[in-house]
């Protein structure tokens, strides 16, 4: 029993059950990459690095998420599990340039129709 508990703790601490991680960089008020393909029905950890000297806000009505991204800092947002489809996001302070989307793809599909 204690051994089993030890194995579970080891797996948790080693990140075996961790959500897949996607890194997005914000530079010159642009999200790079602007389109991210992720597996549907899975929780995803978005790591957003703001390389601009000004703050930005990650905002998405589709994903129901909003978070201030401080200059030169790394921010984390969890999204999903998502149904297959496209989910838009944008920068609240620079909505004309800072735009992107998360494309959730069902297992076995390479792209969304």
């Amino acid at each position, binding site marked *: 029993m204690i051994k089993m508990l030890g194995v579970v703790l080891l797996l948790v601490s080693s990140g075996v059950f961790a959500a897949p991680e996607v890194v997005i960089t914000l530079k010159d008020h642009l999200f790079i990459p602007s389109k991210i393909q992720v597996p549907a029905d899975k929780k995803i950890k978005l790591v957003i690095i703001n390389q601009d000297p000004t703050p930005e806000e990650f905002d998405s009505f589709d994903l129901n998420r909003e978070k201030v991204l401080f200059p030169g800092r790394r921010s984390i947002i969890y999204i999903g599990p998502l149904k297959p489809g496209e989910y838009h996001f944008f920068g*609240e302070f620079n909505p004309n340039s800072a735009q992107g989307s998360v494309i959730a793809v069902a297992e076995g599909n390479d792209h969304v129709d």
Partner: protein
Amino acid sequence: MLINTLLLFVRDLMPVLMLLVWLLLLRPAAGGWRALSLALLCGVAGSAVLVVYADVITELADGAGMELVFVGLQLGLFVMVLLTLWQPKQMSTGVTMMALAIALMVNGANLIFYLSGYLYAVTSSQSIVLGALLGLGITLSAAILLYALASWLGGRHLPLVAALMLSLFIAGQLAHTSHLLVQIDWLSQSDPWWNTAEFLPENSLIGQFLAVLLGYQDTPGQWQVISYFAALLGCVSALGASRFKRKFHS
């Protein structure tokens, strides 16, 4: 940017003013101007600390630092409201004023984050200044109107009306806070229980006002609904315990 700034003031200034309105109606003495000034000063100082250290706080706890700080502060506010409801008359002014200081700290910091973001993004700050003035005017007018209306309609039941409105207010704040925990994966994500975004979007002027007044949400998940009703239950229990205690002693 004018509309964004206006909505920002409704979202972040209105909760502080609304809390002040319900607290003043519940406890008209509320420590007087000196206590109020001290609470405002503490709130502004707290906001300044959050803003200055925001970039450090945001990277704490694997990037969940800011959410956790906001959740901690909102829980602190909830406890202060519970204590105020439990012993509205005997409660020390300190608890009531601490509630106000915490609300100002959280909302003031948010207001500064967003205002600075808007100011960085525009070449002319004219629309932001105008939006801020309009937002300030609307929120102040709404708070004064609400105070007058509640005083007039409440009659001899005014303390009870104020207590119930305060309960709805804090329940809405906690429901919003629970969403922060979903965002950092401390609570599980769920499908919205309902979707009224097309009928009344939460980010509209009326939507924001109702969100602060009653805790309205256009697409709440399970944790938002659970935390809303759990907070309401806590408030009603505190209020019931307070009334029972008074009857028992009299």
